């Protein structure tokens, strides 16, 4: 594709439009980093409980107050049977509730955003001896803060600095002494003298002693009370000190060792030597704080874009605000905004990386649930539910339930088991397992179905790859869903969705080789052969050359057989068909005359659901491995096929019987454990490639390369086997009987090529794989036609299909 064409493509246009809109947006509304830049927000919940008093119950508490340093928004209060009044005092913002006998709890929550402050105290600053009387409250002694006490004075004499008029030196010495006191977990009030005498105190004792010493030196000081916003549940508040220097109250915390600084996770509630709570006596008052730390985009905050008067201060669009206006919770909004990006991630994971997962977009759903409970608990919950579903599968398997009822039963079992598990785990852990009820339990039941199938097939490598791919996809989606930066960008600049759309369209057109295929076809890729990947196959060949109607038709083996037979192409006979359960009543009659036969599902694939009967002993039939099979077992198998258990389309299916094919002696000699087949790859009437698939014991008699069958490259000119490999390893002899394989010439080769040519005309698939077997009596028979033939033929032939397309340009291969 030329560069000019590149720049004129749809996705390119979308990108141009997006960029133009972005530039316009930024020009009209200046870019404000704070509108996009995420910040730490603390969800602060205060729960107070009490028993009602005989008379009125009153409770007062200091609530967070907005200031230059801290922002408070999204406040909610719930206090049934109580009246609230809020007023602002010099000490802080006080809320008082008064209620009657029915009052028993008050809950308050708010979101807090605060900034850390670091103060610079000039070294040359001197203590001001001429403070006026208005500073007396911050210089004199109080009940719990001794100032001119002999012990305080004696202490000061022992620790005072060389320059006792330097503010910085004095405060440093006071800080060093008080922060050096042993910290003991006192919960009650400790006055400054007690702290001094004990040589130990908690935060309030150390802070009071700090204030004592500061006041002794003529520096105004006060206590400040609040909460340290550490994530989790707690019952302790905290006290620190503020000292008035020049024109500023400067914070010190001798307990947690902050000198002239206050971190952003300190929530200030009151100033002065007060109690955080006051309440009517004898009401069994109890309280707790619950704090959650969130890194959140400002776009998701409820008060953004409004000033105090409610007027919009930033006129840019905010998608999140629009969604919250319709009462969508903030968390749900964030997930909603990110869904397109998650879809793009899934596309990348599958089509670019080649990762397989259980369900295409299922990881996105799981990641959405994880966004509520956390990645760790989410993955754990997902794993638990999968295990429960798998266990249910295993337990129900002997009952041989039909597919839909089986899935419905599993969903019910998962539901009940999950309820029990969530309740049990929630009692013993702090994890919010209850939120796991958001998990798409139904979807997960399908995951378990697929998991069970893989486990039954013992395809452990495939299982491991699928699990890994699923987990990686979940993790990638989770990181995207929880990216506060992306929330902000997409909420405030919704035109960026056009870029996402452009990327999705680009990925939809992209036909490059997936990363996983680079590994799969590493030998060919390294040698720079033109390897065709699945993306190219699906888009450039299957989607272009095969209509969906014809693909469905090709998947219907009976219909294909009819069309091929009509075109004079030899196919195995059809002995009987069963498309409804009622028809199974005639099974005995149908089988009475048959000694050997094969049962196949009409819409099956990869050899699944095929049952081979090689003979009969009285009422019992003999299977391909010599095992005894009863009529009842055969009936059950037919039931499963009709139920759609093996159907590619997921619907109910038809089971049909064919005669058992006895393959050509040459092939029987080299591969005695199953029916070999020849895969011919045809594109637009041209034969591109051919390979012989030889079953082995490891493949269970199936000619399935992924299950251990041998792939043998067949020379199109001569029909000779030129190379063989199994599981990527080359070999020259069959591993089961050591028969040499290289150089074996396939019988009926020209006939095979002619049949392939006729098939491509009989069935209007532009790109197809034709499976042919060699019957001992009848010669080549077409088993089926595949509208999406696999690409392993490239590895077998050691030749990329693109190069074959170049070589065989418009010429049908013939001997």
């Amino acid at each position: 594709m030329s560069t000019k064409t590149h720049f004129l493509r749809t996705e390119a246009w979308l990108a141009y439009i997006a960029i133009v809109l972005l530039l316009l947006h930024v020009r009209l509304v200046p870019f404000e980093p704070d509108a996009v830049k995420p910040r730490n927000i603390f969800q602060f919940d205060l729960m107070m409980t009490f028993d009602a008093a005989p008379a009125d119950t009153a409770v007062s508490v200091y609530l967070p107050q907005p200031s230059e340093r801290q922002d408070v928004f999204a406040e909610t209060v719930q206090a049934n049977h109580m009246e609230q009044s809020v007023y602002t005092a010099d000490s802080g913002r006080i809320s008082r509730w008064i209620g009657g006998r029915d009052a028993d709890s008050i809950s308050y929550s708010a979101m807090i955003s605060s900034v850390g402050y670091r103060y610079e105290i000039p070294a040359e600053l001197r203590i001001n001896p001429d403070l006026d009387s208005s500073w007396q409250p911050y210089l004199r002694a109080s009940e719990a803060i001794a100032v001119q006490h002999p012990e305080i004075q004696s202490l000061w004499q022992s620790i005072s600095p060389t320059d006792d008029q330097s503010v910085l030196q004095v405060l440093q010495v006071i800080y060093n002494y008080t922060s050096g006191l042993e910290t003991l977990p006192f919960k009650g009030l400790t006055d400054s003298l007690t702290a001094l005498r004990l040589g130990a105190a908690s935060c309030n004792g150390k802070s009071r002693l700090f204030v004592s010493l500061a006041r002794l030196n003529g520096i105004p000081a006060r206590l400040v009370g609040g909460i340290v916003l550490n994530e989790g549940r707690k019952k302790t508040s905290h006290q620190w000190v503020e000292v008035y220097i020049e024109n500023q109250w400067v914070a010190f915390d001798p307990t947690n060792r902050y000198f002239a600084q206050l971190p952003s996770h300190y929530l200030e509630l009151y100033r002065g030597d007060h109690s955080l709570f006051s309440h009517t006596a004898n009401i069994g008052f109890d309280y707790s704080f619950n704090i959650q730390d969130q890194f959140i985009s400002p776009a998701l905050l409820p008060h953004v874009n409004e000033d105090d008067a409610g007027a919009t201060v930033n006129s840019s669009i905010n998608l999140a605000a629009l969604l919250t206006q319709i009462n969508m919770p903030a968390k749900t909004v964030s997930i909603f905004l990110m869904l397109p990006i998650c879809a793009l991630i899934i596309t990348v994971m599958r089509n670019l990386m080649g990762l397989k997962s259980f369900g295409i977009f299922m990881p996105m759903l799981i990641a959405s649930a994880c966004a509520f409970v956390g990645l760790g608990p989410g993955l754990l919950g997902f794993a638990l539910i999968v295990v429960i579903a798998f266990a249910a599968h295993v337990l129900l398997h002997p009952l041989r339930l039909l597919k839909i009822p089986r899935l419905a039963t599993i969903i019910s079992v998962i539901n009940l088991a999950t309820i029990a598990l969530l309740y049990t785990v929630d009692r013993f852990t702090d994890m919010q397992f209850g939120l796991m009820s958001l998990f798409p339990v139904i979807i997960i039941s399908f995951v378990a179905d697929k998991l069970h199938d893989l486990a039954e097939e013992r395809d452990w490598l495939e299982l491991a790859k699928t699990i890994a791919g699923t987990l990686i996809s979940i993790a990638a989606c989770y990181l995207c869903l929880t990216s506060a930066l992306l929330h902000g960008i997409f909420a405030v600049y919704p035109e960026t969705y056009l870029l996402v759309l452009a990327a999705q369209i680009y990925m939809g057109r992209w036909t490059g080789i997936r990363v996983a295929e680079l590994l799969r076809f590493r030998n060919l890729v390294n040698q720079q052969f033109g390897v065709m990947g699945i993306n190219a196959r699906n888009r450039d060949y299957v989607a272009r050359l095969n209509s969906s109607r014809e693909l469905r038709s090709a998947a219907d083996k009976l219909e294909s057989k009819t069309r091929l037979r009509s075109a004079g192409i030899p196919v195995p006979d059809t002995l009987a068909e069963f498309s409804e359960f009622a028809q199974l009543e005639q099974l005995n009659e149908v089988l009475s005359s048959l000694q050997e036969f094969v049962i196949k599902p009409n819409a099956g694939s990869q050899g699944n659901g095929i049952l081979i009967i090689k003979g009969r002993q009285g009422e019992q039939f003999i299977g391909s491995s010599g095992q005894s099979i009863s009529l009842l077992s055969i009936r059950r198998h037919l039931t499963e096929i009709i139920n759609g258990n093996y159907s590619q389309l997921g619907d109910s299916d038809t089971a049909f019987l064919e005669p058992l094919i006895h393959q050509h002696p040459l092939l029987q000699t080299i591969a005695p454990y199953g029916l070999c087949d020849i895969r011919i790859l045809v594109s637009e009437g041209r034969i591109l490639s051919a390979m012989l698939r030889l079953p082995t014991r490891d493949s269970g008699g199936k000619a399935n390369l992924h299950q251990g069958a041998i792939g043998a490259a067949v020379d199109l000119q001569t029909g000779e086997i030129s190379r063989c490999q199994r599981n990527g390893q080359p070999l020259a002899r069959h591993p089961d009987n050591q028969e040499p394989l290289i150089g074996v010439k396939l019988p009926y080769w020209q006939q095979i090529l002619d049949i392939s040519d006729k098939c491509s005309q009989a069935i209007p698939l532009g790109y197809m794989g034709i499976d042919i077997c060699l019957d001992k009596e009848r010669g080549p028979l077409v088993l089926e036609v595949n509208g999406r033939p696999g690409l392993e033929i490239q590895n077998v032939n050691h030749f990329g299909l693109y190069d074959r397309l170049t070589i065989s340009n418009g010429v049908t291969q013939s001997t």
Partner: protein
Amino acid sequence: MRVHSTWIPVSVFFGLFSAVGATDYWLSQDQLRYKQVVVSPIDVPENSSVVVRTPIDQQSVSQALYTDILQKEHAGVPLADQSAFTQLPDITQAAILDKRILELMQNKEYNEVIRLCRSTHLQRRLSAGIQFDYALALSRSGQHKEAMQAYRVLLDHQPNHQAAAINLGLQLLVSKQYAEAGEILTGAVSISSGVRKAKALSALASALKRQGDWAGAEKAYARSIEYRPGHANTWLKLAQARQQLDMPYVHTEKTYERAVALAVDSAAAWSQLGRYRLLKLDFTGAIDALNRASALSGRNERLRKDLAWANLEHGRVKAAHGHWSWLKRYAKSDNDRLLAEHMLGLINQQQRSLAPLPQHRAEFRYAQALLAGKPGGHNNSDHENGDHESSIKQLQTLLASPEWEARARLQLARGLANHGIETRSAEYSNGAKNQLFVAYEHTVTAFAPLLKENLHLPEIHRQKIEFASQHGMLDLALMELEESLKQHPDSIILAAQKIDLLSLRQQWDQASQYLDTLPETMRNHDDIARAAHRLENRFKPGKRHFSAILPSVHSILFNDASI
């Protein structure tokens, strides 16, 4: 090339993904950065306080009406019979009752309170909130049973009444119903907060203590302190509990120290600290504390005796002599005066005919052991070399005595070491050096068990080192001393011992240098000051050279040859 066409979108995707992830992470860390604040003028006055209105308004009661009602009540007309009273609203009646009760309680007219409350119906008492005062008045007037019942009635009505629960518990304690007190006070703890919780916990600890649950009491006292850290008495009781439980010495001593820090003027606190230290062989610490107690309490025979023993054990013979002399004159009991005489004889190394000490008290048996160990001892003139075996037997009987066990073990250790050295002397055949090592081994073996005990270990080390140096093991003693000082760098007695040992080895410069390295607080201590004084005396020519180690009861007892 097709392969390259894969890596381009892969790189772009991972690049973007990583960039977003890295930016997210970096921004989250960015939140920890601070805003630098430039000091600038602000206008907030910040100098007036706002009084928060109390949530419940008091009902105003007319003074004239109140006085009239009271007068009639005094004249014998019960309130229930006064129409002026009964016609008032319920809430006003409650306010009048409350006001009156308050006045009476303030004036400590408890009987009046009881009378008034009894004339008021129970429901009225409960609704007026005076049932608590009623119960309190009953308890203060000595009617404990009735008080308990009144508290119970109140708690039935108001289960969360903290003060009532606490007081009921206290009443049960007074009545020696400890188990029930424990239950009630456990409930009081759960409903109380702040200082009340501390009181409830303290009372609960008392109840547990009375039932022999010292571990529970210790926990309760410790919790009580969390809510009332400045309460000296609770610290003291906690220390006593810890002592009873034989908790680690350092921890328990610290608890006592905190108690005395909060009650510097309490002789009882200082004396308890002193006794504990004496018990744990911290003689110098005991002397310090007991001296403080003595200064606060004046003449106190118990203190004197403790000081007498502490000084004697520590080797402060002169001070010991002074205290025993006082006891000889002023002790109340004859036996104590006799004891003092014996001790004075021991100190003066005089043989005197005195009556034997009785054996019923461990203290006397300990004294007897000391006396018996002295050569030509007081009690048995037939033994010219001292009756060591008799002494050892006496000491062994003291191992069952909590107060004397440690000192007895210390004496026994010295005896064992000495005995080992003496009886093994025949095996010293390979020269002096080997002889010393063998002697040192005996010393270590004898004192080793003591070093595992919950005692003031510096003293054990000091005794061991003293013993070693007395037997000529100066190098080994110094080596041992250095090791001990590493473990106990703040030990005054070990520091003093080092000064003495260095000067005994005539390493005066080193001794002086070491003295100079000590912090001022240590240098100011008596023991260090004395050691420094001795160092100075030895260093000056013409001065009499005293022994490096002060004569102590141990050297007197065992007649150590090196002295």
